């Protein structure tokens, strides 16, 4: 005899949303503000940056001084979870190296992201490279939603009139730091354009919003902001939605599958409550998945029924396919000219102050599409690992007496070197378009379940020549900028033996494309409203519907698509179509 039973409620919600990140959060915000009763299921705990952020803590307030033992981006980073979760494995096959970052908490991965907020451009939606697929929508169709998001959430930047990098409605950008001016000057000599960054940080008070404070320039967005001066789904979307009285959140609710009727319509979801280990079922008229591209694909593939034997929304057989992350490669070094630099507070904002949008014409290149470059460096707050490179750097340039000395050392002379080299470092990272391919995918591993008994994902992903050539180009660009800056490169110089430093897929945490949208039911899982072709009261609002990501970071497009889908749901409910 077992005490296992499934707890069902009599309540039927208008909408149940799985996930509280950018996609789920935005859908919840729009629907709750429209008076629709929404239940949101979040697989992790509640998190309110006003209470829980580690903003303005000093390194000594962490016994590990900010080391990354329990959080991949360090002890002060807001995001829980990481590349591995205890009891929740994923697997790979065919020697795939895929890394899957999961953040189970209110706000999901918007807790740690770089707040870099780029729109995709007209050619990202309707590419002319002969290789990548069209979206079922154009930039012009999504533009009004990008505009609304700029106003609702706030973003800084400068209007540049670059067609592939559409301008938004911008707050003033933060001025460049010293290292960034060096980069800007050198990049111009190397033929690379540099413009002001575009980030979702309130460099000025957001007009019409009394709940969020203006940035006070601590540069710690990644720790969460106690005054809600940056964008996190928790502070800007879910918590305001809760305050409407129309949205309720159940935390620690790990969704197993979407439930369907005999006719194949979604009727709700089942989940395991992580706190009591019990099974629950929720009834809802509409089901929205915003669990992240891979997790939403996993839920759909695990939602098998008589009417959906291959998983829900999967008549095309494409759920899990076309998985793609951004490409990424980087280089680091230091600027000898900056040794013994003057000290002042240059924390700035926690997103990029400058960046290089893709600046070249592919006609003259041996790879399609392109990449943008993000830059860093400067006088950061020390944390675990501080000064680790100094005993190498001090052998690369002359000492105070003008003579070269041996790398390494100890004592007063080394202590002096830590001071001399402080704030001299620079880094650059490329983020580029990876090609969405049917044969890069996640699927259900037929033999592995997680600790809740839910079948897990198995990944298959290979980079191809297009991505490798792009990484090679990145390295050449970085090198020429470093050279023009008079900088000394200290990171490993990558060559063909390791794909020019191209990171393993998943590492950039921009994975998208697993439940793609399209007009043709045979070649897509969702229609152009992110509504399942074969289950009209099921929607997906995370990055899974992306057909082909541009080199732009995914969040702003997730938000715009989710808002558009939520408004469509309101319209369809009014017309009683769903």
């Amino acid at each position: 005899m077992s005490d296992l039973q499934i707890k069902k409620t009599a309540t039927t919600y208008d909408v149940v949303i799985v996930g509280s990140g950018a996609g789920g959060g935005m859908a919840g915000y729009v629907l709750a503000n429209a008076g629709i009763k929404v239940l949101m299921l979040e697989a992790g705990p509640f998190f309110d940056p006003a209470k829980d952020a580690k903003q303005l803590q000093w390194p000594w307030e962490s016994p590990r001084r900010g080391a990354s033992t329990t959080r991949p981006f360090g002890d002060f980073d807001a995001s829980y979870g990481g590349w591995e979760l205890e009891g929740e494995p994923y697997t790979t096959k065919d020697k795939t190296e895929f890394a899957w970052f999961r953040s189970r908490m209110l706000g999901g991965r918007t807790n740690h992201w770089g707040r870099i907020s780029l729109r995709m451009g007209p050619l990202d939606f309707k590419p002319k490279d002969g290789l990548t697929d069209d979206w079922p929508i154009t930039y012009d169709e999504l533009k009004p939603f990008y505009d609304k998001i700029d106003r609702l959430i706030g973003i800084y930047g400068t209007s540049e009139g670059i067609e592939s990098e559409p301008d938004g409605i911008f707050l003033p950008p933060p001025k460049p730091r010293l290292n960034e001016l060096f980069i800007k000057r050198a990049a111009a000599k190397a033929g690379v354009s540099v413009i002001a960054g575009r980030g979702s940080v309130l460099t000025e008070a957001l007009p019409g919003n009394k709940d969020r404070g203006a940035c006070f320039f601590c540069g710690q967005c990644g720790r969460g902001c106690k005054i809600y001066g940056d964008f996190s789904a928790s502070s800007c979307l879910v918590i305001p939605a809760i305050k409407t009285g129309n949205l309720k959140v159940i935390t620690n609710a790990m969704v197993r599958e979407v439930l369907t009727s005999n006719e194949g319509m979604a009727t709700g979801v089942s989940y395991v409550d992580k706190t009591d280990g019990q099974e629950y079922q929720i009834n809802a008229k509409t089901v929205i998945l915003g669990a992240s591209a891979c997790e939403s694909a996993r839920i759909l593939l695990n939602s098998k029924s008589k009417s959906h034997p291959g998983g829900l929304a999967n008549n095309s057989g494409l759920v899990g396919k076309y998985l793609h992350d951004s490409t990424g490669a980087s280089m680091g070094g230091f600027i000898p000219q900056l040794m013994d630099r003057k000290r002042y507070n240059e924390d700035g904002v926690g997103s990029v102050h400058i960046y290089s949008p893709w600046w070249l014409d592919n006609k003259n290149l041996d790879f399609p599409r392109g990449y943008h470059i993000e830059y860093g460096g400067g006088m950061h707050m020390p944390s675990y690992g501080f000064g680790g490179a100094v005993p190498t750097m001090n052998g690369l340039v002359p000492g105070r007496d003008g003579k070269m000395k041996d790398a390494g050392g100890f004592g007063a002379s080394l202590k002096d070197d830590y001071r001399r080299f402080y704030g001299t470092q620079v880094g650059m990272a490329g983020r580029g378009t990876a090609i969405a391919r049917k044969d890069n995918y996640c699927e259900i591993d037929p033999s592995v379940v997680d600790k809740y008994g839910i079948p897990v994902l198995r990944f298959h992903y290979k980079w191809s020549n297009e991505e490798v050539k792009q990484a090679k180009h990145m390295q050449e660009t970085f090198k020429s900028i470093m050279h023009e800056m008079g900088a000394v490169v200290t990171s490993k110089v990558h060559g063909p033996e390791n794909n020019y430093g191209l990171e393993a897929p998943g590492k950039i945490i921009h994975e998208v494309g697993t439940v793609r949208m399209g007009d043709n039911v045979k070649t897509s899982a969702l229609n152009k409203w992110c509504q399942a072709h074969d289950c009209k009261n099921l929607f997906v609002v995370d990055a899974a519907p992306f057909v082909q990501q541009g080199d732009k970071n995914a969040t702003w497009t997730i938000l715009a698509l989710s808002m558009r889908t939520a408004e469509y749901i309101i319209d369809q409910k009014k017309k009683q179509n769903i």
Partner: protein
Amino acid sequence: MNRRESLKAIGLTTLSTGLLLGACKTDTDPTAKAVDNTSLESTPGLQEFEVDRVKKLNSEQFFTPHELLTITVLADIIIPKDEVSGSASDAKVTDFIEFIVKDIPEHQVPMRGGLKWLDLQCLNRFNNSFTASTEAQQLQLVNEIAYPLKAKAEMQQGVVFFNRMRSLTASGFYTTKIGIQDIGYKGNAPGKWEGVPADVLAQYNLQNI
């Protein structure tokens, strides 16, 4: 909320950063009723396993008193007191190293073994442990392992140990008040970023960039 109100709300006019509490909350947590399954009394911003881990590690002891003494002597050789700031031991670097090797166990064997390697070198050469050797003897040995590119091949194990010891010492020192003051980090304080100061722009000829 404008910037001045924000700063006031988080009590930063007095810079009492240890006392940051819910900034924008004016009412008594409207989220509590609408949220299920949440222990709102838990330690803010920490997961239960993180709290438990620190408690557990603090209740354990890894290094022996002799090892701790050796670490203290070495750390002060790496970062001694000078005219700007105190030494590694003034910044309690040894306590940090004791914690971090428990937190990141991959440090344990190389640290324990490296300390032993050091003692054996001293025993063979000076007939004493490292800490019981004279200062001149200690420095003689450290000199042979502190410069990776010119160290002799037979000293390579010592070089690898010293690299680790030096990194941990720097981590432990510059993450304290003493170390941050020494290095001159001026941030982690609210303000308004107005760009690079004019005198610095002029110094590097960047006025027109």
